[in-house]
């Protein structure tokens, strides 16, 4: 006895007709379907180094440090990013702004050392969210693979900082 309405259909074993049991018509049909793919469907392959897929506007790639409209470093070494970092990959050493470098920094304090350990970073973007000065962003660069030399994965301030008037030159 069928337990419910659907079971009545499920339990029914359909007898295959003679043509069905020959299998050959079905095989020919299947071969026409594959041939259709062979001849008419375009390949979905993206040939990577030459061709790239567009990235999302909020994509989180490698870190970039910004300058303000007067060309000064925005970062004031407030440690907000370091506190918010769940991977604890940010290392900041603050110093006082004196003498010559005064017109390079908006406040009295600046980050003498600002390092990110890329191998620890999980690219969550919390540093970017926490920054009150809009100084750090995770931008579109994502080709971070390398071999052999792990020192390359310690991202220093010099490598992250925008040069004046120009976008950051990516390395790694």
């Amino acid at each position, binding site marked *: 006895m069928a337990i419910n309405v659907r079971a009545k259909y499920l339990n029914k074993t359909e007898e295959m007709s003679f043509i069905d049991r020959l299998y*050959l018509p079905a*095989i020919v049909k*299947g*071969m026409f*379907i*594959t*041939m259709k*793919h*062979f001849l008419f*469907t*375009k*390949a*979905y*392959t993206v*040939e990577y180094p030459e061709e790239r897929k567009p990235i999302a506007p909020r994509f989180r790639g490698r870190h970039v440090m910004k300058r303000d409209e007067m060309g000064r470093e925005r970062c004031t070494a407030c440690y907000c990013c370091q506190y918010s970092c769940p991977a604890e990959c940010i290392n900041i050493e603050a110093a006082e702004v004196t003498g010559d470098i005064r017109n390079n920094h908006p406040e009295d304090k600046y980050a003498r050392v600002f390092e990110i350990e890329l191998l620890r970073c999980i690219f969550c973007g919390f540093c970017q969210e926490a920054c009150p000065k809009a100084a750090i962003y995770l931008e579109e660069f994502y080709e971070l693979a390398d071999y052999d030399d792990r020192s390359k994965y310690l991202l220093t301030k010099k490598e992250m900082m925008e040069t004046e008037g120009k976008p950051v030159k990516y390395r790694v």
Partner: protein
Amino acid sequence: MEEWIIDILISLAKTLAFFGVILLWAAYITLGERRFASFFQNRLGPNRAGIFGLLQPLADGIKFMMKEEIIPKNANRAFYLLGPTLFITIALIPWAAIPFGDTVVIAGREVKLQIVDLNVGILFMIAVSSIGVYGIMIGGWASNNKYSLLGAIRSSAQLISYEITMGIALAAVFLLSGSLSTRDIIIAQMQSPWHWNVFVQPLGFIVFFVSILAETNRVPFDLAEAESELIVGYHTEYGAFKFAMYMLSEYINLITASALITLLYFGGWGIPFVDLGRLGLSVNLAGLISVIVFLVKTGFFVFVFIWIRWTLPRFRYDQLMNLGWKILLPLALVNLFGTAVVALLV
């Protein structure tokens, strides 16, 4: 020069040319299979080495030769090495009897484009290819690996059961052509495309095609190397050039199968509705055209094999045995009996 020296030189040249063509072709089937497979799956396939990836076989070959030769610790060393050697040798031998084309005239004598025109050509080919099981069995057993052994057992069981069906399907063809020589079978089909055995023997053709698909160990009968269950079956433990030898011989078997279909059922080098002899071409040009026609037809069937591979799923072991013994064998017998009766009456 003495007559016999010329004979030997021509034979040698033919042999070398044949094996060169076959090995090169087999190497390029590896590329063809990969690229066609990707077209069937809406991909591009290997296209980086050379234009359209045409240097890929070369790159693969270099890779296979450079790799470390590993022999498993508990393998039977002698048999482990014998396996691939035997397999590739046996895969190449049937080509002695396959005619690539009609005759040409070299140094004032007629040369058949065939290494030897045996009067038992097909029988010889089937006899040799049935020894191929030993290459698989020895390789699978000597690796001392359960997957290899299982693959080898499956493969040999499959080869043995489908050989019978294939032989009986062929017997009907022999009845019609009245000869076992490959050349005579082709010439018997020459009159018109309606004399091609595929139209005279449609049932026999289907049986033969399915059996030869099983003989070449290809999808849907690739139980011997079922990746999902047995890794790759009997050559699981083989690496580097020994693996390449197994792969190459499987592809050579594929070409052999296609050539067999061409010459037995599709009129060999005959062009439909065109009689090369009456066009008034020189003998050598006609011979060259016949070679091209034969290669094109064979190449088409190689493509059909690849096409089938990317269409059908794999059979289960019991389904395979069922199909072989309970369906194809009776069909082949009925076909043989019917052909015999008709041949007797007509």
